[in-house]
């Protein structure tokens, strides 16, 4: 069946499925490892002294202040320049993880910092250890500040995984381009691709809204 001239439905679905799989793979990698690394970096920034915080901040700022697309291109060319071989998708994944980790670390740091110093002091005066303070007093309040900005970053990185197509990895956008190069009919394809992103992202955004409500104080 020819849905759009030049490509039959089976091929179209196959192409999009291949692209979507990569997009989802990249998103899951970015969200899991990026969140983990970002959380650790953000938390470290709240406990180390100014000097170490400054050093961490240099790295975070470099990552946050250069376009992801440039970082991907560098990650693509750098291994060859240094004389070793690495799978393109692996290099790309590492870059995306670090990029999300950098953004996430800012969210975590800002979230922890948003809890008033008096909460630390009051809980300390009641005998809580540092980890107990974190677990029972500080983080439950910090989530509230973190969730909206974390969701923003998470949705951002899912959409930004499309940039990896510049180094030849076939994800959703790239598979759309490939289909279009055969059909020469871009508009319906871009609508379909856009719709798929929406189907992936929208539930996440809804989930975050529900989570936000859940962590509102005084509503259980």
């Amino acid at each position, binding site marked *: 069946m020819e849905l759009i001239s030049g490509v039959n439905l089976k091929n179209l679905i196959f192409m999009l499925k291949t692209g979507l799989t990569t997009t989802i793979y990249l998103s899951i990698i970015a969200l899991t490892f990026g969140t983990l690394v970002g959380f650790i970096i953000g938390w470290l920034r709240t406990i180390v002294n100014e000097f170490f915080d400054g050093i961490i901040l240099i790295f975070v700022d470099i990552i946050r202040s250069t376009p992801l697309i440039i970082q991907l291109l560098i990650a693509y060319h750098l291994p060859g320049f240094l004389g070793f071989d690495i799978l393109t998708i692996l290099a790309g994944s590492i870059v995306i993880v670090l990029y999300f980790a950098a953004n996430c670390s800012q969210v975590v740091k800002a979230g922890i910092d948003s809890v*008033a110093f*008096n*909460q630390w*002091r*009051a*809980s*300390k*005066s*009641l*005998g*809580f*250890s540092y980890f*107990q303070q974190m677990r*029972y*007093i500080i983080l*439950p*309040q910090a989530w*509230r500040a973190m969730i909206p900005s974390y969701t923003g970053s998470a949705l951002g990185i899912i959409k930004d995984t499309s940039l990896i197509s510049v180094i030849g990895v076939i994800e959703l956008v790239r598979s759309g381009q490939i289909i279009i190069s055969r059909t020469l009919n871009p508009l319906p394809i871009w609508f379909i691709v856009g719709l798929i992103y929406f189907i992936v992202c929208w539930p996440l955004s809804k989930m975050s809204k529900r989570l936000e409500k859940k*962590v509102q*104080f*005084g509503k259980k």
Partner: protein
Amino acid sequence: MAGKRILELKNVNKRYDNVPVLKDVNLVVEEGDVWAIIGPSGSGKSTMLYCINSLEPIQSGEIIFQGKKLTDYNKLEIHESIGIIFQNYNLFPHLSVLDNITLAPYKVKKKSLNQCRKKAIELLEKVGLAHKKDAFPHELSGGQAQRIAIARSLAMEPKIMLYDEVTSALDPELVQGVLEVIKDLVREGMTSLIVTHEIPFARECTDYCLFMDDGKVGESGPTKQLLKNPKNARTKEFLEKVL
């Protein structure tokens, strides 16, 4: 008064960065004593309380609590035995009133949850707020929040209570309720150090008074005597301003 020393400050010096806030402060508190600590703002009254509760380190001198130097205790023992109430209540906003009170005895003292709850309800009755046990801090008035904060601190069964200007953030009509709770505790013999600007309250409820001036002990002695016949010119000047 039993005459047993519970707390002693010997030549305590404290600096924030390089700014001295406590200068050679000396104080002896016996069990059951109730002290008012008065003085202009910035004179080191609150800082002294933080140092006693080891929320802030001191640079020199000694603080001796129950015969042992504060530095020889582990922090947990100090925080268990010395309660402190802050100007801004500092309740945990994400927890209900009941959870605010039970969390520390449950997690820090590792008592059973049932025991903690029972104790919490008793304390809530004591401060007259048993009906608020399921409320959240944002639903309380300042006066109620402060009474909950007192209950929260008492749940740790402290030996001594420190009050840091606990009524100065309150609307005037709410002050009395909080002071009544403190008075009750004082009557029960709780050793207390009360930083306050409420001179009439100090006169009525405290045995001794310490006037802090620029990080130093300006004058100290029995409250009634000190308030009536201050020896120090600075005390006199301060009392004339606040009364």
